[in-house]
């Protein structure tokens, strides 16, 4: 059932996009009815959950790595999923009017449905990895939706910024999830929550920091908040749905969900309180100084997200209750305000509150909706916003630590928020009519959707009992233990009511003197998180450029140097295990002819690399080969010596052929470079020398087997041991060897294939004979090996 509910929006998304051009109305119907149906289905499951019987639904996915597609519906996920599907239905309805006639509406609705499925997945998943999977999918669909008006560069950059910030957070979540599973012994969230003792685990702090990193980036907490205002480049329905009502609350959800396992202790309340509180105040203060309707709403959303995080940090049952109530209230009023701002923008062509007033005359319905939502936002009775805010004050007042500080911060927030609510929901509609273009009442799709949300906020304020069970079971899930909740509009004359009254007075004054106060504010902050992000990005790119130029110079010999240097370093590292080795090496007892052979090889080697004439070089290589084959003879390996000699002769012949084509040597590299090279070579030499000395100092190490020599005669019936091994014991190797040679032949054939016409045309007859010779010559080794 839950799997079906999660996958249904994905399926709908896949159907809607291609169907749009053919059956527009049908597709539009699907895209509104699917979220609506989901909401109804969830409501039908609600009573059982509220009675305290959560739904658990496991499905196997990749059992070998502990990943399953299991779902879990308890109070917390029910509250979230109801919001997701309910507001989803409203937003999709609204989109039909907002983007009416746009050729991309189909794609837009499909992406919204895709997002809805992902978001449902986040809150319903009972497996940490599945949670992460859906989490990333929400980031990705948010990217697509922010960049929806892709022709604008700002929209594209904002989309990328949001994705990078939330994407990095998502990766932190993955790491945190794996560590959490390591610590708790399971990837199933229900089992993690039941595990207990996680706070004492050695990995607790890393887990905590990673999870907080994920939650803070997603929920736009300071200092990661900057992506959210930029994300306002998205169309209004997206801002309402993703960036205020649902997606940005995924971080809050994560913290609330894991609170029973990770909460408590010293770090959790401290970090959550600190960052949540800071975010709350920064958000609401910045919102106060903004003029763009959407920016005002965006920053106030940041402030509210901070408040919610702060409440989870406070960590009392009262605080969880307040959090759940305020979350619901905020989703309703903020969603409707965002949609309303879209309607205003749609009709007037601007979102600057300085240019707007008196819109109530032209758009009375929109104005009414905005006012109801703003009253809830300001925290005035008789709305759900008021109840939520009272609960906030109440729980802050009874906070286990720093109660006065939390209460004061919340009171300041409340006062400013009152002013901000007035700016957003009152200012554009009051006074004489002023607008860049003459406004009309928005079409019904544009005001019904925000209207339903706003009115719901009002109704729940008037009849709070209706929301009681939802909030109670959500708060209980966060607390990990039953919490009793009784909601009422009036709690008597107490501190919260006093604070509300004070807030109204201070907030009213702030609103009235806003233009004067705004003049005092600095034009722009010297250091902004967004600026830091930009500079970080620039530094990253600069570093990347430098590194690539230096490492990937394109010069063959630079690459060779890197290989040699690393090889020497690695070898040196390996040698370090040994103490200084005393050499047991003495040349004096070598036999005369052995010295001669060794000298011959060395002389040839040196001549090869030093020679100024290429023929001398070739001759020297030949000499080395002959020397090596003499050594083989000394070791009693005549067949090897024969092979070596033949191949050596062949190589020399080949080289001579090739030299026929090539120009004379131009010699070595420039001198300063050479000094470096020689230094590198010397290092290599020291390493090699040390290796041999160390090897020599060891006593002869034990020999392993002489199985082949013992058996070759009896088993394979041969006298020449090497031949026997080649043909019998190592038949497979030899087979491979022949393949190597065959490939060499084919390769040269492919590269130099005779194409007489082409060659005559391109280079004249001079090159033809030698090219013919090379493929012919390569076939020789084939016959050589056996």
């Amino acid at each position: 059932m839950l799997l079906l509910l999660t996958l249904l929006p994905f399926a709908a998304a896949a159907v809607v996009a291609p169907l749009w051009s053919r059956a527009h109305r049908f597709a539009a119907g699907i895209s509104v009815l699917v979220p609506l149906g989901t909401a109804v289905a969830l409501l039908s499951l609600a009573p059982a959950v509220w009675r305290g019987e959560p739904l658990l639904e496991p499905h196997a996915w990749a059992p070998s790595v502990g990943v399953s597609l299991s779902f879990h519906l308890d109070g917390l996920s029910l509250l979230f999923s109801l919001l997701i599907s309910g507001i989803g239905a409203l937003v999709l309805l609204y989109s039909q009017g907002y983007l009416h006639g746009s050729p991309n509406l189909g794609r837009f609705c499909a992406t919204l449905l895709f997002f809805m499925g992902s978001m449902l997945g986040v809150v319903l998943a009972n497996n940490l990895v599945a949670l992460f999977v859906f989490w990333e999918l929400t980031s990705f669909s948010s990217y697509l939706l922010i960049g929806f008006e892709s022709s604008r560069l700002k929209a594209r950059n904002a989309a990328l910024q949001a994705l990078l910030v939330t994407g990095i957070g998502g990766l932190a979540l993955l790491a945190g999830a794996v560590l959490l599973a390591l610590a708790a012994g399971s990837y199933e969230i229900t089992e993690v929550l039941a595990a207990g003792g996680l706070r004492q685990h050695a990995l607790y702090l890393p887990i905590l920091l990673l999870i907080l990193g994920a939650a803070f980036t997603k929920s736009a907490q300071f200092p990661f908040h900057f992506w959210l205002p930029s994300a306002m480049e998205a169309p209004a329905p997206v801002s309402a749905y993703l960036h205020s009502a649902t997606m940005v609350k995924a971080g809050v959800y994560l913290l609330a969900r894991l609170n029973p396992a990770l909460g408590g202790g010293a770090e959790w309340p401290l970090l959550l309180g600190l960052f949540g509180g800071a975010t709350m105040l920064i958000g609401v203060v910045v919102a106060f100084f903004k003029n763009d309707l959407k920016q005002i709403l965006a920053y106030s959303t940041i402030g509210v997200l901070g408040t919610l995080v702060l409440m989870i940090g406070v960590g009392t049952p009262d605080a969880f209750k307040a959090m759940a109530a305020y979350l619901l209230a905020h989703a309703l009023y903020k969603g409707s305000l965002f949609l309303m701002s879209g309607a205003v923008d749609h009709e007037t062509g601007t979102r600057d509150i300085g240019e707007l007033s008196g819109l109530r005359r032209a758009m009375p319905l929109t104005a009414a909706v905005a006012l109801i939502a703003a009253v809830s936002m300001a925290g005035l009775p008789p709305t759900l916003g008021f109840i939520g805010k009272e609960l906030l004050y109440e729980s802050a007042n009874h906070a286990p630590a720093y109660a006065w500080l939390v209460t004061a911060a919340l009171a300041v927030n409340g006062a400013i928020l009152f002013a901000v609510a007035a700016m957003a929901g009152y200012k554009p509609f009051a006074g004489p009519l002023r607008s860049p273009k003459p406004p009309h009442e928005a079409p019904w799709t544009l005001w019904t959707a925000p209207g339903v949300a706003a009115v719901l906020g009002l109704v729940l304020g008037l009849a709070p009992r209706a929301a009681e069970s939802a909030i109670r079971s959500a708060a209980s899930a966060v607390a990990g233990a039953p919490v009793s909740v009784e909601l009422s509009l009036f709690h008597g004359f107490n501190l919260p009511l006093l604070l509300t009254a004070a807030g109204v007075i201070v907030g009213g004054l702030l609103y009235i003197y806003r233009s004067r106060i705004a003049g005092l504010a600095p034009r722009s902050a010297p250091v902004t998180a967004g600026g830091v992000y930009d500079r970080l990005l620039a530094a990253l790119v600069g570093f990347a450029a430098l590194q690539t130029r230096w490492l990937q110079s394109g010069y063959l010999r630079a690459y060779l140097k890197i290989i040699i240097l690393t090889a020497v370093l690695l070898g040196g590292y390996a040698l370090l295990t040994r103490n200084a080795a005393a050499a047991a090496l003495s040349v004096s007892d070598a036999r005369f002819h052995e010295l001669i052979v060794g000298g011959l090889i060395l002389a040839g080697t040196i001549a090869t690399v030093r020679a100024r004439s290429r023929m001398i070089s070739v001759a020297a290589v030949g000499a080395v080969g002959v020397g090596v084959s003499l050594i083989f003879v000394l070791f009693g390996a005549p067949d090897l010596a024969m092979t070596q000699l033949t191949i050596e002769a062949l190589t020399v012949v080949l080289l001579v052929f090739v030299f026929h084509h090539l120009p004379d040597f131009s010699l070595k590299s420039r001198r300063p470079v050479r000094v470096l090279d020689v230094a590198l070579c010397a290092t290599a030499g020291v390493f090699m020398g040390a290796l041999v000395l160390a090897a020599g100092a060891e006593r002869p190490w034990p020999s392993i087997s002489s199985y082949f020599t013992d058996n070759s005669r009896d088993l394979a019936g041969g006298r020449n041991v090497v031949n026997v091994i080649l043909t019998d014991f190592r038949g497979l190797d030899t087979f491979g060897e022949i393949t190597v040679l065959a490939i060499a032949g084919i390769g040269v054939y492919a590269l130099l294939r005779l194409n007489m016409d082409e060659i005559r045309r391109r280079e004249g007859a001079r090159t033809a004979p030698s090219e013919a010779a090379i493929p012919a010559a390569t076939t020789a080794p084939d016959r050589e090996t056996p």
Partner: protein
Amino acid sequence: MPASLFPPYEDLLRILPEIVLTIAGTLVMVLEPALRPERKRLLGGIAIAGLLVALWGTAVANLFRGPAFHQMVVVDGFATFFRALVIVVGILAVLCSIHYLQRERPDSGEYYALVLFSVVGQSVMAAANELIMIFIGLEISSIATYVLAGYLRDDRRNNESAIKYFLLGSFATAFLLYGIAWIYGAAGTTNLVEIRRVLSTPELAPPRFLVGVSAALMFVGFAFKVSAAPFQVWAPDVYQGAPAPVTAFMSAGPKAAAFAIFLRVYMTAFEPISNRWEPVVWLSALATMFVGNFAALLQNNIKRLLAYSSIAHAGYVMVAVSAHSEIGTAAAMFYLAAYAFMNVGAFAVVTHFARQGEKYVDVDDLAGLGHRQPVTAALFSIFLLSLIGIPLTGGFFGKFYIFKAALEAKLYWLTVIGLLNSAVAAYYYLRILVVMYFHEPGEAAQTVSPVAPGVKIALWASAAGTLLLGIFPSVILDFADRSAALMK
């Protein structure tokens, strides 16, 4: 010991894929001169048929698990996995090549033989259990690939790619060989299982530092072949210069096979000295991820960008190697499979889009492809999203599995850095997506021709593989899990 030295019939079945491929390769060479240029594509068909039969042969060989030919090769799950992987890569590469060859060099068919022989080499590497066998497999694969990289002999980029690949490659192989010579000197055997036995038996154990030096020198060779830092230097130049289908091939097949021998050698023979090589692999993994991802940030040539990205992905696999556990091995296997699909798929798109003479290989050339050829663009998006590691693609489960293995091995820092790196990587992959969908169609996209049938099959197959591994990972994951225990 067997009474007769004639290889038992099971032994022959155990190398059935190699036998089939060699026959197919020879057949291609024999038929090549007899065919008129316009019929040469028939050879591509033979190659694909041969590869498909070899895939069947792999399955047959898998029924006869165990060592063969005096322990030189061993057929186990690990070998079967990599054999199947390199053969599939071979099939995809040939599919991409048929049209490409007709376009660029219609008179040649030995290309297919080289691909087939290269796959033979990789298949030998997958099953090799002995250093000589490893060396020979490596050489068979490498020599064929050197030639393939320079296959369009009249193209300067091809020439340069081949010469760089060859010189650096043979130099690195020389180090590998020197390392093999020393370990032979130290342990007296080249058989991996024997080496392990010698190293872990105190009375037989050779001097530690000698083993260490051999392991270090062999690391140079292996790290080069998998393009791990600091031996990654060749990869961008070679990948950029080689023909696009060849790049697709060599960035997936030989790399997977090289990782196979890397894993086998270090997880069996050198396991007794694992505390010595773990830090080296750790450092290399770190550097590889950094170098690859950061260099890719600024790339505008899409082949070069994918080359850097392939370095970065080698870095992730190195993370799995440094975890040094069975789950790490399984993670590396799964990742290489996912990587093969997504990377070959991405290069298949490049093959298709580049046109005659590989004219359009800049990221900006892709502008507006999303409007011109929505299906191609959608498939390309799947590959790019998988390379980023977005869920529901193979790339995601690959990364997840690797980082899980790393965390279980307590490689916390490496994991964190790896995760940060994948965030950096998202930036450059997304740039391609943005250009493709959000920019106005440019000249290149306006003139794009329909996708050739071979490339189309390769694209769809790669996309199917990528999604299969992302949605139903258990199919491969369980097999990798069961095969990760190597013969010791």
